[in-house]
């Protein structure tokens, strides 16, 4: 059995080395590998094959605005986006991607269907919906829906926030508010200036179910 296995390994290796096929390649520095192959072979491990990730460390990419995805991948590639999870996981992934691959990756994930999370705390989510729809006038916090759309699906550079993991939303709002690690989100720094942790929790809980 072992001889068979060794034979298979050697044969497979030789065949693979001898071919120029890039199907199912996990090579992140080969411009010939398509965005779809990279999405399925590499990105899917954390973000899910359909862009609906399981662990909230990794954002759901399904149904995300392709313009936004292109922007983020380029920000990772240029190191302009430097939030901890961003550089820990994504700088390496994005470092050799070509513009073409980035466009293909964005097209792949934006075409997937977002699966929102289940309702866990209706009261908190209702509070979040209020902020999402109407903002908080008393502290000049505008409604999320103004830019992200009434259904939270986003538009161009404004990302989809509907159906995103609550924990991811909370962390990103904290990064916008407290750091300069996402310069592309300068607008969000102003918007989140007066928002409280309780309000962040509420709006994130709502968005996860939207």
């Amino acid at each position, binding site marked *: *059995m*072992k001889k068979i*296995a*060794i034979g*298979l*390994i050697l044969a*497979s*290796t030789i065949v*693979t*080395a001898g071919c120029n096929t*890039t199907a*199912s*390649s*996990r*090579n*992140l*520095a*080969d411009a010939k590998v398509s965005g779809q192959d990279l999405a*399925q*072979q*590499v990105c*899917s*491990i*954390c973000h*899910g*094959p*359909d862009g609906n990730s*399981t*662990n*909230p*460390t990794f954002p759901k990419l399904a149904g995300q605005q392709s313009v936004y995805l292109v922007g983020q991948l380029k920000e990772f590639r240029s190191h302009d986006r430097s939030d*901890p*999870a961003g*550089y*820990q*996981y994504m*700088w*390496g*992934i994005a*470092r*050799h991607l070509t513009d073409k691959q980035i466009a293909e990756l964005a097209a792949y994930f934006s075409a997937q269907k977002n699966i929102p999370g289940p309702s866990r705390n209706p009261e908190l989510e209702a509070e979040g919906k209020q902020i999402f729809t109407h903002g908080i006038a008393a502290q000049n916090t505008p409604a999320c829906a103004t830019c992200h759309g009434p259904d939270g699906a986003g538009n161009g550079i404004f990302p989809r926030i509907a159906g995103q993991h609550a*924990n991811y939303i909370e*962390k990103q709002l904290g990064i916008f508010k407290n750091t300069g690690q996402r310069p592309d989100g300068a607008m969000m720094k102003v918007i989140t200036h007066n928002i409280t942790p309780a309000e962040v929790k509420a709006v994130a809980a709502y968005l996860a179910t939207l």
Partner: protein
Amino acid sequence: MKTNRHYRPSESNITAPSCDYVKSALSIMRLIRKSNFGQLIIGVAALFSLLLSGNAHAVPAFARQTGQNCLACHAGGNFPELTPYGRLFKLTGYTIGKRTIPLAVMGVFGSTNVKGPTPTGPGHTATDGSLTFDTGSLFVAGKITDKSGVFAQFTYGNYANTNYILDSGDPSTGHIGSDNTDFRYADQLINGDQNFIYGFDINNNPGVEDVWNSTPAWGYNVVPISTGFAPAALPIIDGGLAQQAVGAGAYMYWDKTVYAEISGYRTGDGVYSFMTQGNGQQINIKGENPYLRLALTHDWGAQNAMVGYSYFDVNEYVPGMQNLTNHYRDNTIDFQYQYLLDPHTFTVDVTRTNETINYGDAGSAPDSINSLMAKATYTYEAKYGAALEYFNISNSSNNIGNTNSNYNPSAIAGEFSSQTGTEGWTPEVFWLPVQNVRIGVQYTMFNRVDGVATGGADAINGKASDNNQVVFYIWGAY
């Protein structure tokens, strides 16, 4: 050596997954090995400057290949325990990323101190209480083709030769040997939202190809200078054939749910000896010896869990007795749970092995070994961590009075003449000042050693608590 065939002495634990830098670090370490404290401090400072001078994102070979931080693959940055992504990185043949120079180095400094008076108890060494350079490893690790890769470790054990134990011997005779090695070819087929990974593997330590940390090869006492389990007789799956046998096999992982593997192990001699050399007298096993592995896994939210089973069936030749073999059958069930969401990482591993031994010499009754190991680990911000390990290992002694007994010089087949049950706890705290350096303290408390509980004593190991041992370590990789 046969007497303690499965005995894993703490300091010579070069078969455990270990880490080190070699090259420049080695020269520093050699310099300070027998030096005084002042020189040691200089050495440590030099080592740190070596580490800190590097790019924070340029850690060992795999990280250079993916460009990612350690914590992408290691749970809470706590090497060697893998995250779901780290497991997939391994199962897909170490191929994610770009091909780079596949070299990395690792080093361990440490200090051990045993509670009991010398020379009682295992673990006492000529270097008790001194901070010493323990092991250094060179890794050849990385992507070979788009579908194949390698993880190969070679370890220099500064005290790898055994006669330094107890009588001090000559502590200067370290040597280098093959450590854990794993060659893979793998592919991943994706259809819609389902995926299927399959691969082939050649390795030199049964279980080292596994991706969960509830396997003996990766789960317990992974810090190379760890105390270990004192004189307990361990099942053969627990390092008994590490760097002695070579196996090849095939595996599949379906939809991140079902993992199955079948491998066959044979003696690591002849053309395979590059994977086993430098590890003492060759242990010979008869023909092909099967290893089977099944695991069910599930991810939900920030959590994931695995329930697994493995079976290892080995016929091992008794040294000096032509054609006489002992037959070991190991049934293991294991469990792993992980919670991974910054800033918290919490993991639990539990491993239960039952080994049945049928001796080759007529007249010996079968024996068995039961081992239970469990470990919980928490890290905060991938920087501060604590762990608690429990171990309880016991064996039958069905051949008391047999002239072939274990501790009798005339023993020919390694039967156990006595109950050598060992039980204890190892709490540990550690700190990762940078992602590729871990500094920690462990304290191993023995409730029972060699079948003797705390308060009792036996001729070989003294009181159980005399074996208690504190270990301080600095473990880094570059």
